[in-house]
């Protein structure tokens, strides 16, 4: 366990102090600030108009949901950049030798690497959480859907990280690892499109279930479904497991 946390902590430190992290989190802040302010003004204007007619608008769906969708979109591109170095660079710099000849298991290596990027990703999520939290200072809204959305987003990020890690484990080229990670993550999103292409109700239901988008929408709507949580956790487990296999395989290849 200690070795796993040592790997996680070391990687976390080196990741969050790298220029790439500064650039991405900086851009992340700018983009979110720009869009969030527009959305909140837009929301204020509309709610004033609708209040005249005796109606209300839901701040969660009209502001937070689109805010979080944007966060998701950025994570989709940023996470492969965070994970690309995890194992590919170890191989390239030959520090992989150190990990593989230390008295630790492939499972500890894979989980340690996963945790490291997950913690760095949580830094981004914390930044993203500042906006709704700031809104809470002058607005009153129900916290349930917001919390469930953030749980969903954290789980979703876990999937991206696990996929990115797997991509990084199969190559020693950092660039290739980032590209492969992005392609795999995008394809996870596009599986859902298969539903539209098939007439078979069973097949179309299947595609809907394995689509990461469908599962995420339920979190966004404030429903914490057990199936969705299990889906997310098993997707993470699957890719961490695949990574573990690839790391382990270097011992018997």
């Amino acid at each position, binding site marked *: 366990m*200690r070795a796993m946390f040592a790997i996680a902590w*070391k990687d976390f430190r080196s990741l969050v102090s*790298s220029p790439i992290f500064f650039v991405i989190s900086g851009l992340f802040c700018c983009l979110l600030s720009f869009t969030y302010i527009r959305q909140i003004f837009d929301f204020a204007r509309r709610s004033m108009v609708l209040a005249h007619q005796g109606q209300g608008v839901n701040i969660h769906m009209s502001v937070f949901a689109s805010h979080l969708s944007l966060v998701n979109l950025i994570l989709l591109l940023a996470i492969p950049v965070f994970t690309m170095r995890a194992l590919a660079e170890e191989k390239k710099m030959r520090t992989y*030798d150190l990990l593989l000849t230390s008295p*630790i298991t492939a499972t500890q290596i894979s989980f340690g690497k996963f945790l490291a990027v997950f913690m760095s990703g949580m830094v981004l999520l914390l930044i993203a959480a500042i906006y709704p939290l700031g809104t809470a200072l002058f607005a009153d809204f129900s916290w349930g859907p917001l919390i469930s959305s953030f749980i969903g987003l954290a789980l979703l990020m876990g999937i991206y990280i696990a996929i990115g890690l797997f991509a990084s484990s199969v190559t020693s080229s950092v660039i290739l690892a980032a590209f492969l990670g992005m392609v795999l993550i995008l394809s996870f999103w596009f599986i859902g499109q298969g539903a539209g292409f098939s007439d078979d109700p069973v097949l179309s239901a299947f595609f809907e279930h394995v689509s990461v988008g469908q599962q995420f929408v339920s979190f966004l709507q404030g429903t914490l479904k057990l199936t969705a949580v299990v889906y997310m956790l098993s997707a993470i487990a699957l890719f961490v497991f695949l990574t573990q296999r690839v790391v382990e395989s*270097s*011992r018997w290849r």
Partner: protein
Amino acid sequence: MIEVKNLTKNYGDRKAIDTLSFKVSKGEVVGFLGPNGAGKSTTMKIITGYMAPTSGSVEVDGLDVFEDPVEVKRKIGYLPEIPPVYGDMRVIDFLKFCSRLKGVPGKTMNSAVASAIEKTSLQDVQKRMIQNLSKGYKQRVGLAQALIGDPEILILDEPTVGLDPTQVVEMRKLISSLRGNHTIILSTHILPEVQANCDRIIIINNGSIVASETLADLAQSQSGTCRIGVQVARDVEKAKSKVSLVEGVKHILINGMRLDIEMSHSSEGIEAVATQIVESGSGLLEFRIESSNLEEIFIKLTSEKETSMGGVQ
């Protein structure tokens, strides 16, 4: 302590090592010698559990490397050819990280790190980023990493490659200071290193062991032989076939118009060779008896172009 049995490793069709077997006992310093690509690194990587062999087994202290990899790795400190250091870490942080990886208990971690730093004389650079260190210092950081946790076995893959001459001397001193406390396997293709440090040498060529003896024994086993360098004016092949008839001749190597003859050391034999060459009418230009030293033994044992006339030993 270490027992290697019938180790074979194939990379695709290429055999990197071929049924290698040897033993290393506790406290011994063994030099692993061979030309580039002989299979030294591969063998070392297999002993450390970094990769698995195609067939054969390695036991460390009675534990199989592939059944108890974690236990075995605990006993081994390994310095690969390229020191496995993270450029973006400070020396001391890196060594702390290593001690956590190696499961050094939290209480003794600081003293373990301090003693590794002291042994490798890294005190002056311990707060510096590894990427800013010179090659020699990086190599020392790599060695400090291997020393952390005081493993019983040290496996050092070409520890002096790429160092300048003073650094090489320092590294050698460092390694000899580690004698006695550790069982050391050291690979190199530099001979003085072996002479300076090792109790025993294992010479490996093309994936097979060609000699595994103490230095003294090796010198002894070869002392009964001598090398004769002969330069002829023409018909080198004819001279060779004539010489090969002489009793006691072991190898003949043709090198341009030169013959390198290796034979058992006896005056009659040498006389006979001289006579044969003169009689062959090849025009003897030079006839020199060369002494045998480690360098020559090595070259002889690992030379691929040799015309074998009855095996090496």
